[in-house]
């Protein structure tokens, strides 16, 4: 276990915390992005050379940002505890 693996692991955990514990969609967005960067750094540390996953990360971030903008337009805020359209 060297430094190359400690940083990605930390990023993963920080991102997961943001994803699980935060209520605001923008904070969740950054949690997910940080997690993704953690995994990508992990892959780089392992010596994976292909860059495809990084460009996929961009697409993921783009679509999520779009959804969050749409949600804030429709619901008037970005607090997930206020998104209560679906029940059951």
């Amino acid at each position, binding site marked *: 276990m060297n430094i190359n693996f400690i940083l990605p692991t930390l990023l993963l955990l920080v991102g997961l915390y943001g994803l699980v514990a935060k209520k605001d969609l923008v904070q969740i967005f950054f949690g997910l992005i940080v997690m993704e960067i953690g995994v990508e750094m992990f892959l780089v540390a392992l010596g994976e050379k292909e860059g495809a996953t990084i460009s996929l990360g961009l697409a993921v971030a783009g679509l999520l940002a779009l959804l969050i903008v749409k949600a804030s337009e429709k619901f008037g805020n970005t607090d997930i505890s206020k998104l209560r359209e*679906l029940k059951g």
Partner: protein
Amino acid sequence: MNQLLPLIILIPFVVAIAMLFGGKLSKLTLDSFALIAILAVASFVKWLYLVRPFNTLLISHLGTTLILDGLSHLILVIANVLALFIIIYATAYAGKYANKERFYALFFMMLAGVNGVILTGNLLVLFIFLEIAALCAYALVAFGEEKAGIEAALKYFLIGEVASIAILLAFGLIYSITGTLNMAEAGHYLLTGSPQLKSFIIVLLISGFGMKAALFPFHAWLPDAHTAAPAPVSAMLSGVIIKALGIYALVRILFNIFGLTPPVAMVLTGLAVVSILIGGLLAIGQWDMKRLMAYSSISQVGYIILGLSLGTPLGILGGLFHLFNHAFMKGLLFLNAGVVERQTGSRDLRELGGLKEKMPFTAFTSLIGSLSISGVPPFNGFWSKLFIIVACVQVGNLWLAAAAVFGSILTMAAFLKIQKYAFFGQLKNKYKDLKEAPLAMNISLGTLALACLAVGLAFSLVIGFVINPAVVAVANGVGYSRMILGRF
């Protein structure tokens, strides 16, 4: 023949790109273009059965390794044939959305992703196609741009991306052990390697693909996403996406690359049984038609995984046959719910009633779908559930068999609820002028209903031609990599 394999991915991909430039064209042109394209892919996939001798592999090395064996062929047929019926249905349904070309573009891109996941022999390529299909699925759930759709899409997105991250991490760890991302080679090197790390990878894989397949306890996104999506998308999600991205990928990697060990099988069996019971119980309590069906999907995924996790040939046969049947009957039921919603404007069972007087054809196909999924002979669901239950008894675990039977009763209760409240009973005054659905929708419903009955009657033929090659491929286990590496 091998050189033609990439077409299965390329045709939907090219159609998706072309659709984006089709904004100016009339809806009729777009519809016919989509129909011709999907018809071409679906017939090509079926035609491959005629030219591929039993249990042989087709391998293409054009750019990336594509492998067609029995299991991928089964899932490929399910995905593309169901997509054909969904497109026929969508020509009438998607009419209510202004930008139809975007709907088709997303749909075909999703299909290209699904076909890519099924065919590829490389873990990284599998991940990329999985992400393409999943991103299109998130966007399609939000396609109506209603509040519920966007909320469901966000939920689906966040859970799905956590799953993707777990999967990517697992693939990275596989790469760190084996030094390769080729599935067959990875399988060869994974025969040795530290058991702790391998267990960790398997945990990541089960949670990652479990989320994609909506296996308990990773099912939270499914009821919302399937309920809020437009009906053709719900049918595609339930019939194809959870199976191709979730079950297929899980089975391919756990069975063929890692090899199913008894502890892993036990975990899968446990999750499957809980899925069957929780999904069935929650389904009965729902009043929203599509939500009820969505919970039932969780239960049926449980059946599929239960059969597969038993590991015996009969269990695998039952699981894969149920996968095949569930795609068609749940596709039929979701499309049916879409018809009801389109004609009445509601999917709340408390508001509906007596629809069979005004919409006899819809009521009839819904009845066939409900009987199939409840496992009533002679429909297809009966045989697959029977195989799974017999396989449970065969391995000597009567509790599993009892849970499977009980789950079947729960499913029947849930779908009788739909029949009772939506189609039978007193017709409400506001539905006096109700009409049947457009012809395109009825063609699609009728063919799927006929398929449910035909597969039930000719089940031995279907098993012989379509299911058995897949059973051989799954039961082959880690022999997969030897079989493929032998061809290099």
